[in-house]
């Protein structure tokens, strides 16, 4: 099995990568939900200190919208990661192959197939890591921008509680919606 010179993955490599990415590890899931929870909690500070919402009186709003937003943002993380992983694997493939081959070139005990499997595994690991981190960065930036835009400009005239609920709902909803795009 060898890669075609035009950098496209072979069918077998494609399938292997898809197999890997279907197994969303517990660690990955925990990372996504943890990050989503933190970023969903950030607007609480904005509304508490800037929009003067009372923390204890509005606790129900904060809890409900944070949980809803956590779920939607985590969904967006997963979707964007899945889409990007393939592209990153293709982009980084050559560089990863070179690096792995450099390390295992002198290893006589390893068969060619083993070497290629190791390359594939490394490609998957690199693509997984980069797609995960970039997905988190990308979605956080878009989410916070949407929350700030909605709360400062669009929903400014509403009461703080409604402003908070709608801006969180709209931001996380739009984020989840955009993430379902296959591009």
């Amino acid at each position, binding site marked *: 099995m060898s890669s075609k010179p035009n950098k496209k993955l072979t069918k077998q490599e494609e399938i292997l990568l898809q197999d890997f990415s279907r197994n969303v590890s517990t660690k990955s899931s925990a990372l996504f939900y943890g990050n989503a929870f933190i970023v969903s909690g950030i607007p609480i500070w904005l509304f508490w200190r800037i929009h003067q919402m009372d923390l204890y009186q509005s606790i129900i709003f904060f809890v409900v919208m944070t949980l809803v937003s956590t779920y939607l943002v985590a969904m967006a993380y997963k979707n964007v990661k899945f889409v990007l992983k393939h592209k990153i694997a293709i982009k980084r493939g050559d560089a990863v192959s070179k690096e792995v081959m450099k390390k295992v070139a002198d290893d006589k005990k390893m068969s060619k197939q083993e070497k290629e499997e190791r390359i594939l595994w490394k490609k998957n690991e690199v693509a997984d890591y980069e797609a995960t981190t970039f997905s988190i960065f990308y979605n956080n*930036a*878009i989410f*916070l921008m949407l929350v*700030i*835009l909605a709360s*400062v400009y669009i929903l400014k005239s509403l009461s703080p509680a409604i402003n908070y609920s709608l801006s969180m709902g709209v931001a996380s909803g739009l984020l989840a919606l955009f993430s379902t795009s296959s*591009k």
Partner: protein
Amino acid sequence: MKLIGAFLALCVYLASGENCQAPQVTSQVYTTSEVHVSTETVVIITFSVQCKNGIKDLNLYAEFDGRNLPASQVIDSDQYQVSFSIDHKKLPAGQYQIRFFDEDLFANLRKAQRSGEDTASIQGLFTIGFSHQGASHGPWIQTEHVAVLSSVLLSYFAYSTRNQLQS
């Protein structure tokens, strides 16, 4: 004659006793610091006066920038307060003096004002100086605009990087 002399001396004594002699003044001054919370600059001067001759319950008047203001006294104390508001632009940052008059001196001031004379030469009972730091208009760009701009720029960067990855 002796009786008349004694009577006149008594009158002089009583007359001099009505005015505050060598007043000792302690004061606190508040001035508006932000334009956004007030339509005008407010100046509040709280002060206490101790007269050497023990006179209390004075009727005091303040004069500032041609305006005459009565000073209110806190009941059963030697504390007084004077407050006024003025347009922000008419009170820029700087050092200011406000003159205080008792009844007699205030009458002199009013007389001079009515006749159009220069009131700067009218002697006051005491003067309180205060420093006004100026009413701030806040930052040139409001912080929410800075936050929006930063988040939009960051999102644009993230979006263009994603496009590069997907190209």
